[in-house]
């Protein structure tokens, strides 16, 4: 079998066509080939959430998502969140609530929170906690992150 496959995907609104190694994860292609280094590599087994990107608007762990599966898909990384130098509402809420410390978990959390805002529905406190539970943060103790997400969902 051929070990390379040609894929086309839209990342942050821009078309990319490239040959990927079938062994590569989406994380590896985004970081190493396309240089979207806001996608962080943490545990590599889908537990920490640092590598979270949106695939067709849904948060997934790009470390356990094969690059070939991204063919034809619309991907959003943290680089695609701010528009024309303006922070998004989610990013601004993270700043305002002081929800960022070392920053390693932040791109993933901002993307998950962005996906939540795009559902257009209301979330209870318990639901917010559940929806951000796929992200590990070793700095903040989560309270400020929770406050930021709650704030943006209630705006």
């Amino acid at each position: 079998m051929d070990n390379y496959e040609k894929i086309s995907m839209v990342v942050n609104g821009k078309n990319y066509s490239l040959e990927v190694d079938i062994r590569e994860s989406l994380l590896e292609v985004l970081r190493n080939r396309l240089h979207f280094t806001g996608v962080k590599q943490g545990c590599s087994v889908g537990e920490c959430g640092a590598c979270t990107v949106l695939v067709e608007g849904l948060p997934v762990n790009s470390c356990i998502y094969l690059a070939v599966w991204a063919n034809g898909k619309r991907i959003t990384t943290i680089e695609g969140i701010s528009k024309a130098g303006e922070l998004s509402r989610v990013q601004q809420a993270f700043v305002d609530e002081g929800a960022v410390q070392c920053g390693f978990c932040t791109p993933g959390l901002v993307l998950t929170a962005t996906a939540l805002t795009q559902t257009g529905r209301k979330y209870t406190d318990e639901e917010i906690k559940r929806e951000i539970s796929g992200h590990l943060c070793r700095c903040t103790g989560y309270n400020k992150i929770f406050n930021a997400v709650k704030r943006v969902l209630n705006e």
Partner: protein
Amino acid sequence: MYDIVGIESPDTLEAAIEMLSNNPNLKIIAGGTDVLVQMRNGALEEIALLSLRNIPGMADIRIMDNGTISIGAMATFAEIFRSSIINEHLPVLSEAAVSVGGPQIRNMATIGGNICNGAVSADSATTLFAYNAELKLLSREGERTVPIEEFYAGPGKVNLQPAEILTAILIPETGYRKTSGCYIKHSTRKAMDIAMLGVSVVCKTAGGKFTDVRIALGVAAPVPIRCREAEAYAIGKETSSEIIREIGRYAVRASRARDSWRASKAYREHLIEVLVFRALKEAVIRDGGEDIG
């Protein structure tokens, strides 16, 4: 990089069966949240994959004319959790689906993969046991349907024949109509954790008495199990606190709990007794009954 030597991505089930028949070494991959992690750990090496992701319609959830609910094997746990059909008719499965991993995992992991990897801790399996689910399997020889209880062969082992694909999970109307139920997952963390014990109950009551009780346990034996003795005891009994406590004690008899680093045998048996009580009590409340304390 993963230790993958090839990947086939057919866009029809027929083509997938053909590829599997011609190359029995192909490893089926669905959501990938288990297979890829096993590869990362070195438990799987030099793997040729058969991805089911490009086959349309394999994630459909629908009610058939005879009332049977069909859940496509590729339906993700997020899709199951959000499905109006599941929430209306199989609420316990929705409860189990949202207890799996975390949100990102639920957007990828499929119910078919959860069953086929044979994990005794599979959050979906316990509830499917309690709903008397059947599995639709397709091979070159045709289609067969087996009760989920007969599918589990041992830890990590299922009775999936070579070149066979699980296409859908079927829940007959008799399995869910007019039932109440509850799923309790007991784990150290509330998210991103594997069950120390999973308890799923589905029941029917009439005039304050149990007319049908189904109790399924995960991580209480090498495979998910039903507690037949406890179920038989419960029929015709009042939905009282004492009776439900006794049902919990009966449920322990079906288990073959063992010591593991996650929990001791003694603790697991204690959990079975207490959690079966709590789950059944909650099921009675949801059925419109009183909180019997």
